[in-house]
C-alpha cells in the first residue's frame, strides 16, 4: 500500500500525463510513470488513482486491458487483452475442437504483429488463455456513438493456438477489477458533467437571475451529486474488498449514476448541452459507451436480481 502523500504525488503525475498525452502516447506515459508497475503490486489502489481522472479528462487509454492482464498474469507492462463483446462478460473466445473463434473489443488500436491475450471458453466449460498475434485477427475501428473512445472490434476464426488454462475464479477476478475501473471512469465523467452544469447554472441568466436560483434545477444537480457519492462509496467498498458481487453492483450503480448525471446535466445545460460545441456531449457519449462494456447497468442489475431471487437471501456485505 502506498502512503497517503505518495498517493497524492502519484495522482498528480497521472493528471499531468493525461493533460499532456493522448492515445498510445498516454499509455506510454502511464508506463513511464510506473502506473503499470503500481497495478501489478496493488491493483485496487492503482485503479482508484487513475480511472476517475481518465473519466474527468475524457481521455482514452488501453489501461482497462492492463487491469485484466494483471489478473490474468498475462503481462507486467501495458498488456493487451481482448475484452468481452459489447454488453457481455463471457470470455471473448470460444474453442471448438481445433478452432478458436473470437469476438471482442479493444480499448485502442493495435500494432501489426502485436500480441494479444485472448481468453476462451471451451466446449468442456473451462477457460483458457492464448497469446495470439494481431496478424491472425480482423479489426474494425469503431466509430459508433463515440469515435474518440478509440474502440476496436476484434473478430477472427483461427486454428487454436497453444493454451494455458485459466481458473474460473481468475476470470471472475479480472472482470471484477475491470468493472471497478470502468465504474471509477464513469464516476469521473459524471463529476465533469456536474461541474459543467454547475458552472452553466451560475452563469446563465434568465428572468433576470442566474438559473442556479431555480429550485427545480438545484434539485436536479443535488440528485446528481447524491448519485455520484453513492456510487463512489460502493466503488471504495469494492476496492477495499473486491468480491465479484460488490464489483458488479458497483459498476451498475456507477453506470446508473452516470446516466443520472447525463439526464440532469443536459437538462440544466439545455440548448448548449445539445450541441457538439459544448464539452458536455463527449462525456455523455463516453458514459454510454463505458456503461456497455463488461455488462451494462441494465444487464448487471437484472442478473444480480435474478441471482438474489434464486438464492433467496441477501449476501452479507459491508460489515463495519
Amino acid at each position, binding site marked *: 500500500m502506498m502512503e497517503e502523500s505518495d498517493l497524492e504525488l502519484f495522482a498528480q503525475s497521472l493528471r499531468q500525463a493525461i493533460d499532456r498525452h493522448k492515445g498510445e502516447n498516454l499509455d506510454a506515459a502511464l508506463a513511464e510513470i510506473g502506473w503499470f508497475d503500481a497495478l501489478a503490486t496493488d491493483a485496487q489502489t492503482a485503479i482508484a488513482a487513475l480511472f476517475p481522472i481518465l473519466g474527468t479528462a475524457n481521455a482514452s487509454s488501453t489501461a482497462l486491458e492492463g487491469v485484466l492482464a494483471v489478473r490474468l498474469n498475462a503481462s507486467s507492462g501495458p498488456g493487451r487483452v481482448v475484452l468481452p463483446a459489447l454488453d457481455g462478460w463471457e470470455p471473448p473466445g470460444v474453442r471448438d475442437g481445433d478452432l478458436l473463434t473470437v469476438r471482442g473489443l479493444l480499448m485502442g488500436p493495435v500494432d501489426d504483429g502485436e500480441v494479444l491475450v485472448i481468453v476462451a471458453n471451451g466446449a468442456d466449460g473451462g477457460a483458457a488463455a492464448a497469446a495470439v498475434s494481431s496478424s491472425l485477427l480482423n479489426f474494425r475501428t469503431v466509430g459508433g456513438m463515440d469515435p474518440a473512445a478509440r474502440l476496436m472490434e476484434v473478430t477472427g476464426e483461427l486454428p487454436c493456438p497453444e493454451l494455458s488454462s485459466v481458473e474460473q475464479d481468475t476470470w471472475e477476478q479480472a472482470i471484477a477489477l475491470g468493472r471497478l475501473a470502468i465504474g471509477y471512469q464513469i464516476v469521473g465523467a459524471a463529476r465533469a458533467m*456536474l461541474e459543467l452544469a*454547475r458552472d452553466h*447554472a*451560475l452563469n446563465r441568466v434568465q428572468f433576470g437571475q*442566474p438559473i*442556479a*436560483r431555480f*429550485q427545480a434545477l*438545484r*434539485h436536479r*444537480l*443535488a*440528485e446528481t*451529486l*447524491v448519485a455520484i*457519492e*453513492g*456510487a463512489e*462509496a*460502493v466503488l*471504495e*467498498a469494492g476496492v477495499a474488498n473486491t468480491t465479484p458481487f*460488490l464489483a458488479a*453492483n458497483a459498476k*451498475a*450503480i456507477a453506470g*446508473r449514476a452516470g446516466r443520472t448525471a447525463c439526464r440532469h446535466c443536459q437538462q440544466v445545460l439545455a440548448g448548449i448541452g445539445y450541441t457538439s460545441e459544448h464539452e458536455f456531449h463527449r462525456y455523455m457519449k463516453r458514459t454510454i459507451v463505458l456503461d456497455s462494456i463488461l455488462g451494462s447497468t*441494465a444487464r*448487471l*442489475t*437484472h*442478473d*444480480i*436480481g*435474478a441471482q*438474489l*431471487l434464486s*438464492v*433467496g*437471501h*441477501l449476501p452479507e*456485505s*459491508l460489515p*463495519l
Partner: protein
Amino acid sequence: MDLDTYRTGLDQWLDEHVAELTPPYAGVGTMQERVDHLSKVRRLCFETGWARWGWPEEVGGLGGSTILRAYLGEALASRGLVDPNFYSTPEVLAPAVIRAADPRLAAEFVPLLLSGEEYWCQGFSEPGSGSDLASLSCRATRGEDGWRVTGQKVWTSFAQFAQRCVLLVRTGTQESAHRGITVLFVDMDTPGITIRPLATIDGSEEFAEVFFDDVPVPFERTVGKPDGGWAVAMDILPDERSTSLWHRGAILNRQMDELLAKAPAESLSPTAVGETAQLLLGFRARSRATQYRLASGERIGAETSIDKVLLASAEQAVLDLVLEGLSQQLVLGDDAISAQWRADFFFSRAASIYGGSAEIQRNVIARRLLDLGPDR
C-alpha cells in the same frame, strides 16, 4: 476496545441471551409493550457494559470509538431484537447534549437514557414550523427563578413515554428568527405540560402533540447559551443522519433478506430486486464511510444530507418491493406479522419527511455542497 474484540464478544453474548432479548410479543406489539421491551434490552446491554462502549466516561460510558455504538445498534436491529426507530433516539439527542450542556447535567441524565431507565423526546416541530424550523414560536420568557414556557409542539415522537424533552423555544423576538432560539432540557412531568398522542398512518401512537402552559424550567436546564439554541439544534441534525441511519440500514438489510426468502416465486421482477439491492448497498457504503469519519473524530455536517437522501430512497424502494412481493399479507393479512410489514411499509414513507424532508436535504446539498449560491 477494538471493534473486532467487541464484535466477537457482543455476538456471543447476544447468541447466549437471545431468548431474554427477543420481544415477547409477535409483530409490532402495543406501544407500551415496545417501550417495556426496549427498556429491558437497554438495561441488560448497559449492565453488561455493551451499551456503555463508545460513550464518554463522564456520562457513564466506557469510552472507545463511536463505531462500537454503530455496531451495537446494527447487531440488535439485524437480529430483530429492537426497532431502530425507537432504539436510536439517544444517538440523535445525547451527543449534542453532551457537547453543549453543562457537564453536570449530561453526567446526571445521559446514563439514565443509556440504561433504559428514561426516555427523551425531541421537541422541535410546531404546527406553524416544520421545515422552516427557525420560525418557531413556542415561547420561553425569563421569570424570577427560571424560564416560563408557553406554546405547542407537534409530531413529538414517544412524548408520552419520555421523562425529558430536548425543547427548542423562542427567547428572542419572532423576527430574530434563528438568532432568538434557545434549547431547554425539560422534565416532562412538570405541571403545565399536556400530551395528546396522535395516531400515525398505521394506527400506532408513535408521536404526539405537546402543549406547554406557563411551564417553569430552571435556568440550569438551558443547553448551550440563551439565544444560542440554533447552533445546538444544527449540531443535532448531522447526528440524526449518522449512527442512527446505520442502524436503519441494518433493519433494511434484514427486511430485504426476509423478503427474498418469503416472496412467492415470480412475484418480483429481477430488475426491481437488483435495483433495490443496489440502492441499499449504495446507502450502506456511504453510511459506513460516515461511521468511520465520525469515529476518527471528524466533525460531520452538511454532507450527511447525502446519506439521508440515499437512505430515504433505499428504504422506500425496499418497502415498495415488500408491498409488491408480500401483497397478500400487506393488503389482506390480519395477523401480527402482516401488521408489522404494514407498519414497516408506512414508516418507510416517513423517511423522506422526518429529520429534514427530502426537499430540504436537496436544498442543503445545492447550497452547501454544490455551492450554488442563494436560492432567492
